[in-house]
């Protein structure tokens, strides 16, 4: 019998359909992130797209467009996240939703 497979976040994102845009719809301003103690973006993003290695990096390609990072950054962090939805027709394409 097959079992419940433990999926990594990369496995999970790999299941989704994305229409990739060349331009990033979310960017981070590390001038601001540097002074941010909590860095709530790092673990609050349900897709774990924020990484910290000397500075904050964001990989917009797997974005699920929930908006959580912006809320936690601007209300609990140091407002380093510049956020918008991807351009029309781009980004995640939920086939179930």
């Amino acid at each position: 019998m097959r079992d419940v497979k433990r999926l990594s976040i990369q496995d999970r994102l790999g299941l989704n359909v994305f229409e990739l845009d060349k331009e990033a719809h979310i960017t981070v301003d590390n001038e601001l992130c540097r002074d941010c103690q909590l860095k709530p973006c790092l673990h609050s993003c349900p897709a774990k797209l924020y990484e910290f290695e000397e500075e904050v990096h964001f990989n917009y390609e797997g974005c699920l467009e929930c908006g959580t990072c912006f809320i936690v950054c601007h209300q609990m962090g140091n407002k380093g996240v510049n956020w918008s939805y991807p351009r029309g027709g781009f980004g995640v394409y939920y086939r179930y939703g």
Partner: protein
Amino acid sequence: MADFDAIVVGAGIAGLSSGYVMASAGLNILVVERGKVPGSKNVTGGRIYTHAIEKFTPELMEDLPFEREIVKERISFLTDESATTLEFSGKTEGRSYTVIREKLDGWLAGKVEEKGGIVASGVRVDDLIREEDTTGICAGDDEITARAVIIADGVNSPLGKKAGLRDDFKAEELAVGVKEVIKLGEEEINRRFQVDSKEGVANLMVGSPTDGLPGGGFLYTNLETISLGIVANVKEIASHGSDLDELLSGLKEHPYVRPLINGGTTVEYSAHMIPEGGIRAIPKLVGEGYLLTGDAAGFCLNTGFTVRGMDFAFASGVLAAQTIIKCSEKNDFSLKSLALYEQLLESEFVLKDLRKFEKAPIFLSSSRIYSLYPDLVNVMVKKIFDIKGEQETLCKQIREAIKEADVSTFTLMKDLWKGSRIL
């Protein structure tokens, strides 16, 4: 002369219900959607309660693409090791169905077009324009005008902010959900959940799914798939450093959940925010040329045992449409005329229910509900069924369980009393 009578931004439930009602009344309307097709950006848990559709647009009930009608309601209290479930099975008077948004929203968009409305997908609205008595939208280099714009752009609502109607919801007023859609097959779901093909189960879970944080787990049976997810308060998640993706993995391995999804194949992973601040978080709903609807307006109601959003979205869209139809008849789109929308919302369940449950968001932020009480319920029920020789009376076992849980009887009674009044 404006290009349209009304422009709707966002092809979700609220946007499409408003588009459908306005187009049915013969208005010249445009629905603009940023996703490649309607529904492709939209996420639900989810189930829709259909009372609002039945009331306002009963003709839509005939071939609406539902998954399964909910005939079993389950509320489960989970600890790491155990689960206690309360189940109601049987028909309720009000109906509810599981839905897949890509199907539902695509179908609804088709209905808007059948009535003569235009649905333009793959277009992101970047800004709003307002000149004398016309209003409108900017998308790239295009400017399109209308007598009024219905803003239905979802919980983050960039346009609600641009229209000056609202600010961001506060982190404590928001929940964030993650969900896996798991393919099991129709027959297998029927067998595991003991239902017929058209019938399904809704299961909310409280306790270990969120590791004791305000929120919970959910499971809904679709026709061939299961929607399994976790919802938790945004502020709590951020301040505790919890990880929703890990919590969902944990839930999948829980002894209660595991046998239900075993052998299934995950086909999608989604995330979405939910406005759960209740009536106190509701922003301005009417502006010069604008009406705010659905999630953008914060129209969701979580009572802990019921979670509603799509019925609120549908009704608010319809009421916004009725307002625009009235304004069009009077040829008056002034702020005063548009304010009819608020009166209609007040006369319907939308604002009535939100007002009734005004204190629910605060009550439901108590951490006891998500750790102490699920533990207590499980300890108590386990004791009752645990025969190891000499058996104790029910009364003694309950007293012992409360003692073990280290909760004062006073606190327990107070929470029960408050909960029964507020929820």
